């Protein structure tokens, strides 16, 4: 493995973390959106606020990590992707602002009307942000981002069959992950009503995501042949694994094995991302730009790996501490209002 491949793998691990943890947070926003009126949806929304409250900012940092590693390790690829796909990326950035601030504002707001406004900002942008990020993935995966002085079409690079598939799949995957995570959280809190609600949603989202993925096979065959061949070639074991993960999640949710359902759901997402990576290897930008073509010099790559290594020494235990505390229910209720 070359230094550049190691850096790219580390970046992909960051992207995976973002997809699993950040994705679950996005999906929670989607379920918040469809939870119903202020009164009826209240308990679901409380659970969502409670579960993602302590962790969403941290989960969100993964996207920054990915961008930073991309522009440091593969600067030309970063420049090409950002300049061609600037429209969906700008919309995703807007979504990120509206979502984070909406969530933070809602938590400290007490009147129902305003909670509704901030809640809508949070929940709607939780749906369209992953959609636009998915279209970016589709644009890159289908080889619509050229390198160098050429700039890809600013519209068709993300309004095309593969991008739309990417967008829809991203949203449904987030919903699927979130339902699996929230079911387990509701179960952990011993709330049977919420368990029943999110379990049904998880089952439904699993079926929907599976159907979209199946339909996607046809789309990719027509629209992104290089990727398609990679997926049925080198990527096939991981693609199959992802399918197995999805079916397993469905079965485990059905059997009310919520802890394992969550693991299987995350596994399905991890497998599909690495399947994509395997399918596209060694190209960063299809059809011809390879990893080595756009990699930064070794001095930069090694400095980057040193920083990531040292950073990980601090990050990993701290992350585990945060997740363990939220797991154990140390955070299991809203922080009490300041005295008064």
């Amino acid at each position, binding site marked *: 493995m070359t230094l550049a491949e190691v850096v790219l793998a580390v970046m992909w691990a960051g992207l995976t973390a973002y997809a699993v943890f950040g994705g679950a947070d996005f999906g929670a926003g989607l379920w918040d959106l469809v939870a119903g009126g202020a009164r009826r949806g209240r308990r679901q929304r409380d659970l969502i606020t409670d579960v993602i409250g*302590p*962790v969403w*900012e*941290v989960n*969100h*940092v993964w*996207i*920054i*990590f990915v*961008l*930073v*590693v991309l*522009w*440091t390790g593969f*600067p030309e690829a*970063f*420049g*090409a*992707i*950002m*300049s061609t796909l*600037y*429209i969906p*990326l*700008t919309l995703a*950035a*807007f979504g*990120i*602002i*509206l979502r*984070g*601030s909406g969530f933070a*504002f809602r*938590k*400290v*707001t007490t009147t129902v009307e305003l909670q509704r406004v*901030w809640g809508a900002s949070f929940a709607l942008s939780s749906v369209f942000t992953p959609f636009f990020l998915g279209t970016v993935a589709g644009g890159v995966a289908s080889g619509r981002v050229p390198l160098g002085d050429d*700039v890809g079409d*600013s519209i068709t690079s993300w309004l095309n069959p593969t991008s739309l598939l990417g967008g829809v799949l991203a949203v449904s995957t987030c919903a699927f992950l979130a339902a699996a995570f929230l079911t387990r959280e509701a179960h952990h809190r011993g709330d049977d009503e919420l368990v029943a609600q999110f379990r049904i949603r998880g089952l439904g989202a699993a079926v929907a995501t599976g159907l979209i993925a199946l339909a996607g096979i046809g789309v990719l065959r027509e629209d992104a042949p290089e990727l398609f061949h990679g997926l049925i070639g080198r990527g096939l074991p991981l693609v199959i694994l992802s399918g197995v993960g999805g079916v397993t999640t469905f079965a485990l949710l059905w059997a009310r094995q919520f802890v394992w359902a969550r693991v299987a759901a995350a596994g399905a997402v991890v497998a599909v991302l690495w399947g994509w990576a395997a399918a596209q290897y060694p190209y960063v930008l299809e059809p011809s730009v390879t990893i080595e073509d756009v990699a*930064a*010099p070794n*001095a*930069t790559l090694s*400095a*980057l790996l040193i*920083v990531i290594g040292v*950073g990980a020494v601090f*990050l990993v235990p*701290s*992350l585990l*501490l*945060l997740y363990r*505390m939220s797991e154990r229910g*140390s*955070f299991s209720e809203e*922080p*009490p209002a*300041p*005295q*008064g």
Partner: protein
Amino acid sequence: MDTLFAARQQMALSLGWHIVIACFGVAFPAMVVFAEWRAHRHDDDPVLLTLARRWSRVFGVLFAVGAVSGTILSFEFGILWPEFMARFGQVFGVPFAMEGFAFFLEGIFIGIYLYGWDRVPRRLHILTGIPIIVSGILATVFVVSVNSWMNHPRGFDIDSSGAVTNVDPWAALFHTGTAISSTHMLLAAFMVAGFTASVPYAWAWLKGRRTRYYRLGFLIPFTFAAIATPVQLVIGDTSARWVASQQPVKLAAMEGLYETESDAPESLGGIYVDDELRYALQIPCGLSFLIAFNCDHEVQGLESVPADDRPPNINIVHWAFDTMVGIGSGLAALVAWFAFVWWRRRRLDVRMPQSRWFYRAALLAGPGAIVALISGWVVTEVGRQPWIVYETMRVEDAVTTAGGIVYTYLGLWVIYTLLTVALLYVLRRVARMPIPDDVANVP
């Protein structure tokens, strides 16, 4: 509106918004944790605990908003300046990776700290606040080091074909400019957060609410800012001299100085037209003296470089610089007033100034510090023009060729206007949450 103009304005809007919010993310936790620590030392003093608790709530909102307004910057670097990133990301990217980790840690411990009130033993809770403070400071240093690199680029060569070679990311990261700029920025963060956080309590004093709760609410943040202010005078001066030695054209723009001359005057105000600064108040030899303590020192003027290589708008740079220095001096005077009264009343129970004029001035100190911060940032950014990488790459060569930036810029205005209104409203609501009588009435 052309793309370059829109791109620069969009960057200015999003950075200008973020830099203010980020100051609170960096400096406010120290004040919150300090209040909690003092409370702990006094058997969980309810007044101090209430202050810490309420501030941490404000802080939680500001951190969330700062986190997302910072994230979109990392999108914009690529969306607006793809050529800059594509060529130089390999040189300056590493400190951003460090910043990423610092930001991770800050977020993690903020999560633990904010949700840990009453769930974690007090002493441990205070300890979880320490990594927030440290990582906020480190994140500032790392981010500013990249800005500082844009002003003093190093750690690479450009070969005859114009390609970037011999990249040395460590050399790009560590140099004197980084130390000066990041210290300047950190002190500014403490001044902005401290002076602003003390504003509601200065208001309370003027309204006659002067119990211990309000006094401490004023004193803690104001003292943080008061300690930072005199240090800032020294660092600001160092910073200006560093600019004089490294970026003489920027310094000439800050002073509106066209001709290279010895015995150069220090100019306050005025309007720069047709290569001349008019109507300015001038202190003879002032500039030469400030830079080299010597009137014979020759100061390089704008004429030393072709017109194309000068900042396009000298008035903005000059006025921003004078605004920053003027406000900074005013804040220093306010702090001196405070220190003098504090010393003179050393035998009294309440040592705070009693003059209503002091608190009226303190009301202005918060917004003033914010204006000074933005002015200083305008000096460094506009003063660097027309370069994105000083004397190496021009902004027009870095900007995107995408056609729609005008629209994304206008879209961002809509979002940031709404966000600012919403944020101020939410903060006001939080500030108005009732304070329990047994806390508010402790004399």
